[in-house]
């Protein structure tokens, strides 16, 4: 500890160099934090595990085929099923076709819906109005903020594969892990006389009593309709969400690779800096050795310098990321095609902690070789060398 002052002084010996090196660490850490959070927004289970007892039933050939509504009764009768609501993915166009105006639009049975989607918190008054008014809808809080909806606002959704237009009235928001969707009445869609009105649905969304019932209920549903006109594929909510992300294909893997390569590059930058500064101090190191500092001292000094510099980069990086750059990127991204992923975009404390640990790792890796080389210098060689 008594050497801390020496290490500190050495780190700040060349201010520009220090600033540039920590600067590159800061930039890279911010980038990694953003990329990893994007990955998380793409793949994590937004309910944070609270949706573990929920199942989604879709047509065996995929989401694009409708299921008959007659299945609802039979699913509801399976022991262990607490509540089931049919849902239809409307996929309409809001305002214009720009990707930033895209969000999930689903119809549901308002009497049942929040019994299934039970990790959502919703004002009881809002829920009551939503239930009572056939043309109303509720939206995730983030969506409300994004579009600035106020209760009573009308929105028009232009149908795409369901060729009807919907005029919906906003009634309030819900809080949940996944706030990227709006929900309106199945009945309202039926009233609009779409081709499957009162006959078909997209999926069934249901809740079972306990986790132990999941495999049994899943198997029971699929077996029940196996040989019917509409065979089903039942999966947990998490699997259902993952099935979308699997469609994103290799993009996820690519982001991972990119992050790794960038980290490697910044480690090289730091290593180069530490090596340069150690090389410039060869004479000084030799003098220190003559004064009685041991090889291990020199090793730990150089290594600590590297770690300290990276730590500073890490701390500034996290502060800058949290309070300036990430809000800026999120605000800027909301107008682009990335906005779909930004609705559930959250930078968790775990990610920041990870970034901090990474900065320590960079320091250790980058300082290792220069530290060993400096400690290996023979005093005579060091004193002889003129830089």
């Amino acid at each position, binding site marked *: 500890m008594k050497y801390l002052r020496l290490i500190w002084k050495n780190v700040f010996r060349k201010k520009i160099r220090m600033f540039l090196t920590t600067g590159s660490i800061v930039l890279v850490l911010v980038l990694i934090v953003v990329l990893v959070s*994007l990955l998380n927004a793409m793949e994590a289970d937004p309910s944070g595990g609270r949706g573990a007892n929920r199942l989604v039933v879709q047509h065996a050939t995929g*989401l694009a085929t409708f299921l008959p509504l007659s299945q609802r009764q039979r699913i509801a009768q399976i022991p262990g099923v607490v509540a089931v609501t049919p849902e239809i993915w409307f996929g309409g*166009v809001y305002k214009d076709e720009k990707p930033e105006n*895209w969000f999930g639009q689903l119809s549901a049975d308002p009497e049942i819906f929040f019994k299934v989607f039970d990790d959502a918190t919703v004002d009881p008054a809002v829920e009551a109005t939503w239930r009572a008014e056939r043309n109303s809808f509720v939206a995730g809080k983030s969506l409300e903020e994004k579009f600035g909806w106020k209760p009573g606002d009308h929105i028009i959704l232009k149908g795409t594969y369901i060729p009807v237009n919907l005029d919906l009235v906003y009634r309030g928001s819900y809080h949940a892990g996944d706030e990227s969707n709006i929900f309106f009445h199945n009945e309202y869609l039926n009233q609009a006389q779409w081709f499957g009105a009162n006959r078909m649905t997209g999926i069934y969304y249901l809740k079972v009593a306990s986790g132990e019932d999941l495999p049994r209920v899943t198997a029971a549903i699929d077996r029940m309709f196996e040989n019917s006109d509409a065979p089903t594929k039942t999966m947990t909510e998490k699997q259902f969400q993952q099935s979308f992300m699997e469609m994103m294909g290799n993009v996820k893997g690519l982001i991972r690779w*990119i992050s790794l390569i960038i980290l490697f590059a910044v480690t090289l930058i730091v290593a180069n*800096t530490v090596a340069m500064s150690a090389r410039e101090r060869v004479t000084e190191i030799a003098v220190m050795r003559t004064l009685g500092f041991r090889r291990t001292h020199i090793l730990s000094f150089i290594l600590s310098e590297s770690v300290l510099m990276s730590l500073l980069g890490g701390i500034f990086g996290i502060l800058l990321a949290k309070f300036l750059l990430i809000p800026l990127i999120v605000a800027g991204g909301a107008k*682009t095609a990335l906005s779909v*992923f930004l609705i559930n975009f959250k930078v968790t404390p775990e990610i920041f902690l990870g970034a901090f640990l990474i900065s320590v790792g960079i320091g250790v890796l980058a300082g290792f070789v220069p530290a060993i080389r400096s400690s290996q210098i023979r005093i005579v060689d060091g004193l002889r060398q003129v830089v």
Partner: protein
Amino acid sequence: MAIPLKYNLRNLLVRKVSTGMTVFVICLVVTVFLFVLSLWQGVTRTLTVNASERNVLTMRVGSQAEMQSVVTRDSADLIRALPGIERSAAGQPLVSPELLILINIPRLDGKSTNVQVRGIAPIGMEMRPGVTIVEGRMFRPGTNDAIVSKVLPSRFANVRLGDTLKMGSYRWTIVGLFDASGSAYESEIWTDVADLQAQAKRQIYSAVFVRAADPDSARRYIEAVKGDQRLKLEGKTEKTYYEEQMVTGEPIKYIAILVGIFTAIGASFGAMNTMYAQVSARIREIGTLRAIGFSRRSVLASFVLESLMLCLAGGVLGTALAYVLFNLIITAPTGTMNFRTFSEVLFNFRLTPPLILGGLAFSLAMGLFGGFFPAARAARLKITTALREV
């Protein structure tokens, strides 16, 4: 007078480790940047290649994708009589009513994804000159045969020649592989439209595909569709239709911009560090250069050039690395979700000449930014103090 380039080159070579590491960092950054951009370029190319202005898709008004559209048999019959449609050698109008369905099939990596199955009229093949059968044979109507793109077997299970693909109540025998010159069709399975209607128990079409003699006739046809009150359909050239799907590549483009900006600044900081170290290690040299008559401006130019050389070396290496990577190592197609069709679109990395130039320009920009401030410091040095430096 300018300081000879050889001076800079030798200086770079003498400090092997430091130069090497900086070059390597720039190389990695350029490779990553090109990597993301080629991904975007790959998606873009898949959606634009072979997209013709003569081929027109007729869909329900407001449909964003063929999948979302419905065209009745009656409308399909009416379309045959519209103007602008070319006729085949046998005198038949080049009209192919098509049905698309989406199926979720397993990939070779154990996950699964959505793939489009396209039912076409037999004449539909003739209307797409970019599509040719490379192995096996064309499907025969009435047999539930199917042909798949030649890249599909490298990504999905059960789609090799001779395989039977089963999904829910659907069942096809794969009898041929086709090459679609890298277009979006290379992500699809094709079969006879009547067979598909029977299997899907649907009596409708998704879209009617029409080939016109030239872009002008195509426009005439689109006008005719618009003017026909019975149809409630709209025509879009293949080109427009796929251009609208470019949003698929947009997120990748923004990730490229994000990654590009951050890594470029980070790496040029690294280059700047190296250059600052060079300047402070060579103060006496700089003094000497000034003393023998080189101007401040020559010193400035010399150090900026040195930084440019350093970064350009990284840029060239990075581009070469990317080239080797995309042409020799990653040869299998990669895929991502097409947001409009909700199905997977397969594509290859594309390192185009503009991208190569872009990568080199990117490295030069880092060199300029990284070299300017250290060079300015070198140029500002006073001869007397510089020469006194130990």
